[in-house]
């Protein structure tokens, strides 16, 4: 078994060029738990020592989040809390303490689990994924990247997520529903971000990829008292005939209330 842990982008590029189909590992919280989740007989490329993947900074009109940033850091970092409150909320409710301390932003995006907690918040902020590919850097809107499988192209890595910012920090929030407090696989999540009246609303765990709830979003922005009803209706539409439909279309109204409560807290703070 071969194992490589590059520390520079140059070494990483070199390793990606030389290795055929390596298994990329960062936090390992997805790869190490499943029986047979680690493929046999393939080289392991450990991204955990790449300082370049640890960036977390404002650059121009974007917040740059390195793919190797741990979830616990996302939850606590003042920049993230200020500019991406929905992401900070999602990170705060992600997995458990132990998982948050290991899991990385890039890993959550790369594995594209239906119940991933970070991607709805990232989508609500129109995040862009920065890949490093054999042909050089490549940027793709997250919404598009998640529709491609595998999400990470061959011989490529995610280097960062970029969150476009528009002027002053905007409100945002993320709420989730599982079977217990934590750790729990999300059964429903809601993320919202934006100026009041122009919020973007994204639901997670409703399908293979996060889904923008346009009707509920309109109701939220109109603030006309139809938000809960719209949420319920849109969730029912999203999963017709599923055994979980009745429950999820009812419980989403609770998440809607929770989301509003959190957004209002944020508005009060801002």
């Amino acid at each position, binding site marked *: 078994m071969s194992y490589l842990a590059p520390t520079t982008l140059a070494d990483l590029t070199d390793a990606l060029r030389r290795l055929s189909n390596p298994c990329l590992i960062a936090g390992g919280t997805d790869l190490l738990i499943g029986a047979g989740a680690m493929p*046999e007989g393939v080289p392991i490329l450990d991204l955990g020592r790449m300082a370049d993947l640890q960036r977390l900074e404002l650059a121009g009109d974007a917040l740059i989040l390195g793919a190797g940033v741990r979830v616990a850091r996302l939850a606590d970092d003042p920049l993230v809390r200020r500019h991406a409150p929905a992401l900070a909320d999602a990170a705060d409710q992600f997995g458990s303490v132990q998982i948050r301390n290991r899991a990385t932003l890039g890993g959550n995006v790369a594995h594209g689990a239906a119940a991933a907690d970070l991607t709805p918040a990232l989508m609500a902020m129109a995040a862009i994924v920065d890949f490093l590919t054999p042909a050089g850097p490549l940027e793709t809107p997250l919404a598009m990247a998640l529709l491609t499988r595998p999400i990470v192209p061959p011989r490529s890595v995610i280097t960062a997520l970029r969150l476009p910012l528009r002027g002053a920090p905007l409100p945002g929030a993320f709420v989730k529903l599982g079977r*217990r*407090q934590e750790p729990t696989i999300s059964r429903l999540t809601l993320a919202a971000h934006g100026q009041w009246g122009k919020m973007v609303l994204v639901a997670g765990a409703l399908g293979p990829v996060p889904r923008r709830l346009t009707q509920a979003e309109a109701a939220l922005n109109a603030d006309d008292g139809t938000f809960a009803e719209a949420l319920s209706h849109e969730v029912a539409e999203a999963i017709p005939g599923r055994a979980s439909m*009745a*429950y999820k279309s009812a419980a989403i109204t609770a998440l809607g209330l929770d989301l509003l409560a959190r957004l209002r807290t944020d508005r009060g703070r801002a």
Partner: protein
Amino acid sequence: MSALGQRHPMLDGAAKVTGAQTYAADLRIEGLTHGAILTSPHAHASVVCVDAAEALADPAVLGVFWHATMPAHRYNSSIWFDGQQAPEDEQMFPPVVRHIGDRVAVVVATSALAADLALRRLRVTYEPLPARLSPPQADAARGAPFAADGTPTFLNPVAELHHTRGDPDAGFARAAWTVETRVSTPKTHHCAIENHIAIALPEPGGRIRILTPCQGVHAVQAVVARALGCAATDIHVIKTPIGGSFGGKAEAILEPIAAELVRRLNRPVCLAYDRARTFCATRMRASSQTRLRTGFAPDGRILARETETRIDIGAYVTGGHYLPGSMLQRHVRLYDVPAERYSGRALYTNTPPTGAFRGYGSPQINAAGEIHLDLAARQMGLDPVALRLRNAILPHAIEPYTGLDVGNARLRDCLSEGARAFGWDAQRAQSGGTGRIRRGTGMAAAAHVNGCFPGSDEATTMTMALRPDGRVEMVAALHDLGCGSNTTLAQIAAEVLGIRPVDLAITEADTDLCGYDIGTRASRMTYMQGEATRRTALRLAEALLAAAGLIRNTAPALLELTGGGVADRHSGDVLTLPALALALGRAGLPLPSATVTHEATANPSSHAAHFACVEVDTMTGLVRVTDYLAAHDVGRAINPMLVEGQIHGGIQIGIGYALFEDVDIDPSSGAMRGDSFAHYAMANALEMPPIAVLLVAGGEPTGPFGAKAVGEIATIPVAAAVVNAVNDALGTALTDLPLTPERILAALAGA
């Protein structure tokens, strides 16, 4: 200082928390080979052929075995002695697999990795057969479960028990209130941290040694002998330290196969299941569907009760043939019911087999009975505690199924003192509400046994001896399952012998060294093994005093055991046990020892009353248990810390049973959806409420220093207490466990 009542840390606690404890998987054995078991993807199928050519091409692979090449002896994995009457329907590798997870073939290789890789190269031809996955479907397949020649037909019911006492019809005719309830409980899994594992090795002379984290070495020996068709004397079983069991390791599952592989290969073999196979290829708690009808007098006194329970025991009978009786035995220990009609029916289905799990039948029948009683209290407008007090059995009542005295059973004290300490009336007054979060308070009572008496073999043999180094060795087939029973026994012995618990040298159970014992089951450790310990220690004490009398040229009556040695009652001079051992050796006198066989003469009840507060989110259906009090009659707590530990753990399992846990078998395919900790949710630390433990005063004359069991009863009333609290919060009549958010919202929508 007396060793009794001390919060003595577990003797093996430091080794466990520092990682120094050596479990079976940690053993480094020269030449150890590894087996991997292929399990069935079909709920019911003939295994026509296993093509192993591709797997055997790897030189690391030592052999592939399946039903065509392994012994076909039928056995029952739940027996504890050879010759026990038990239906035999299991085979190491059955030609017809009966559940997803049933054993198809085993690959042995020089490494675990090679075995796993080879497993994927086996080509199996199955002929799928129709499967019976639900109890109603299974119940329709009626017929004798065994043919005249003993061949299993797997028809139902595999066991059925009817019991009638008094005149139930007359009781119902007189009743002012008659209440009927149907309660269902899920299949749940033990979730011990240590997965199933067994290691077998060839011993010189042709015997086979088995190292296994088990609950009974003699039981493993008996099952392996049946499965291999060999003499029990050919099998030598040693218990390894165990990483949790809760009943899951009470039956020999991997051991027969490991032993047979040693016969084939003459090399040490390790068989270990991963988490998914531990879920779907071992044992779990049987599910139940129970209908209860009770007739009450105007004051709430029970006049008659009718119970009909149907238990899904899965693919093999294991102990399912006595489960209806076990449930009845616990059911009738709680309340004074003058007229009773009970029927219990155990059914085969094509789902993973069930077996022992903390309380063995008790949590099922208790959940049914106690949820039912609460709904009855609501209907009659009676307080749940008052209704229970009105019907609670009294000390020294005669338990009607076995006719035994329940001993100094302090159920009423658990109810009244528990209610007072919990502030029941005040808590109850805060129930309900109209907002999103509703608050509820509930409670439940329980009764459980202490050992297997009057069942066969409720006895144990123990030897204690002074070692040359002055420690006292204690040899019996003891199986501490991780809850500290050895520490409790050491405290009992220390109390009698005037030494410290750490001065006892306790061996792991070993069939070559230890007298016969049925193992850790039926809440018998403290009560049975504890009393055996006390009696053996008393006998050893006599021998020690006699020996010291010879050394000191004093009458033994003038000596006493205290302070780690033999003291002169007048002078206070102490001859330490190491000094005594040395002096005896120098004098050419034998070191004192004692062997006692303790046979049970009673089976008293342990009791509990549990009280819970919950908050229910009426929009999501999520429940949080916010406060908890457990009142227990354990007779006397030898080690209050370990008693509390058992109660805390019991509540954790019980909250899971009420709210979260279900292996969730797909009713169309028979596949288990909850076969990992990602998909099988337990109550973890965040879900646990603050817990207060109240031990009521009592004392059981037949128990060691008055002590009784706590291990199983700790989990028995929990689910009903929590469900009753939820029903109190919402005004619902939820009776299907677990109370998933879906079920709660559906009940609210229908209410």
